[in-house]
């Protein structure tokens, strides 16, 4: 879909990345602020010119320094949703939406005006000016404006970062719906783990201008050598699951995963839906014997794979419970249990400590 290999010097900072993304779905470009995420999508959009390298979208060369190809942004067919919306203040919502659409030949449009207005639920806003819209409404209009150019790729630069959590909920479901309803690939810049959990299919991890890992969300986010990118409090693993059972009486939803069943608090979701959960290292306890008479609902038989000191003089224990699980404990706990690789233990996780993405990427509206 997107293949990129570019180098760009920006002052003393050097962006030097190479990665490719799948045919459809959402690829998250994840990294701390200042990692060069926005520079990368600006280069894809044609707003920054790389010093060298190439950019290909759907087999079309947008940039190639070796062949002196540099297609101007207006011919790249990359829809761009900016963090700050960037709606034209002098135009109504309707005129904003049709600004790009009217420049695309009818035969090349794959989505209609009515379809987009309906999909984003912005029919009641059409006569207003951007100054009269809420943050969430602005981003939905910005999304519609970009979609109506029938782009071959959507670029999103932290589209939810400037919104409070209620407004995020107004926009997130619409983004999640796009890959399936319009089969459009999305490159999504974010530094939010929650957005990755909810939206992304693939992750490219960016650090100091370099792509240091790429792969599925579960794979990349669960790698123990990459935990420092999540931050100290948020280190943990992501596990893909399928909804198996909802039990009103016990107040639990059972999620099937490679190593068995994870129980989390009841939530409204159809059986069989795919749901991603994230278990933080600091929420995982280790016991040498199976405890009984305990409130913890998730007790997984586990094999110790690795015991490693962290930079904060704590201990990260990598466990295998059918998939990777990380547990962060103190050196004292490590000494008490005398943990060594290969040892059989039990991993304990409180149900309420598990965060979940929404089913199929769409958060339930409540």
């Amino acid at each position, binding site marked *: 879909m997107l293949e990129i290999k570019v180098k760009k010097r920006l002052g003393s900072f050097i962006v030097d990345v190479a990665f490719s993304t799948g045919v459809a779905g959402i690829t998250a470009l994840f990294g701390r602020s200042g990692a060069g995420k926005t520079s990368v999508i600006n280069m894809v959009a*044609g707003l920054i010119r790389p010093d060298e390298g190439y950019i290909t979208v759907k087999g079309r060369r947008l940039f190639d320094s070796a062949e002196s190809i540099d297609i101007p942004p207006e011919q790249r067919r990359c829809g761009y949703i900016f963090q700050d919306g960037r709606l034209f203040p002098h135009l109504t919502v309707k005129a904003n939406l049709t600004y790009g659409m009217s420049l695309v030949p009818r035969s090349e449009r794959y989505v209609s005006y009515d379809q987009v207005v309906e999909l984003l639920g912005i029919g009641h806003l059409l006569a207003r000016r951007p100054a009269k819209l809420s943050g969430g409404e602005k981003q939905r209009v910005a999304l519609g404006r970009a979609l109506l150019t029938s782009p071959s790729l959507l670029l999103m630069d932290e589209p939810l970062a400037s919104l409070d959590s209620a407004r995020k909920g107004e926009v997130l479901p619409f983004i999640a719906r796009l890959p399936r309803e319009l089969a459009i690939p999305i490159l999504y810049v974010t530094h939010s783990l929650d957005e990755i959990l909810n939206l992304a299919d693939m992750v490219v991890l960016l650090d100091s201008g370099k792509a240091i890992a790429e792969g599925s969300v579960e794979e990349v986010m669960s790698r123990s050598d990459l935990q420092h990118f999540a931050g100290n409090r948020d280190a943990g693993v992501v596990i893909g699951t399928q909804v198996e059972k909802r039990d009103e009486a016990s107040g639990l939803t059972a999620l099937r995963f490679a190593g068995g069943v994870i129980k989390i608090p009841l939530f409204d979701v159809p059986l069989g839906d795919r749901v991603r959960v994230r278990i933080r290292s600091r929420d995982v306890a280790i016991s040498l014997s199976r405890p009984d008479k305990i409130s913890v609902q998730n007790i997984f038989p586990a094999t110790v794979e690795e015991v490693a000191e962290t930079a904060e003089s704590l201990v990260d224990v990598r466990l295998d419970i059918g998939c990777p699980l990380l547990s962060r404990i103190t050196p004292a706990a490590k000494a008490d249990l005398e943990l060594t690789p290969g040892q059989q233990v039990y991993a304990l996780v409180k149900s309420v400590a598990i965060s979940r993405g929404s089913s199929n990427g769409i958060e339930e509206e409540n």
Partner: protein
Amino acid sequence: MMELLILTPLEAEALRLSLWVSFWAVAASLPPGVLAAWVLARKDFPGKTLLDGLIHLPLVLPPVVIGYVLLILLGRKGLLGEALYNALGISFAFNWKGAAVASAAMAFPLLVRAIRLSVEGVDQGLEAAARTLGAGPARVFFTVTIPLVVPGILTGVILAFARSLGEFGATITFVSNIPGETRTLPLALYTLTQVPGGDAGALRLCVISVIVAMLALMASEILTRRVATKMKG
């Protein structure tokens, strides 16, 4: 009493000429004014300071100097004036067109300053967004940049128009004081002060000047407010 409110033919002619000359001075300098403002706000090139200085010269030089320079350049025997007349039959010497040129030269820096400030205030992110939506540089300029600069253009136009109405020194030096051709309100007023018994007439022209200037300022205020409400939805 009522006849006090009726303009004499001489007054009417001076007023009509003033409005006509000022209108053309502003209308003709608007396109180059927008271009100069945009170039000064957005482009960096060698000689930019020189261009900036040239445009602003009329603000700091005595108007008579500007009038004299115009006479040397555009007079009937002037450096450009003669060639212009021979090639296109256009002459600026001692006619209302020359008065418009003198007014335009004096008002140009005010026009450019107001528009330039406005161009500098335009969020270039919006222009980048328009590019990603498929608009080429020219379309972005006319559909995004210019509409966002409208408040600055309005301010600049009113300032330049008011400056043109008041133009005296450059006009009288360049195209002289010819009734019906170059005798605008300020020149007519000056003429009346030079003849015995002209005081009453001069006073009437003063009042007319004040009314015209006030109307221009009020029009600008109303237009600016209307644009602002439009942007707010």
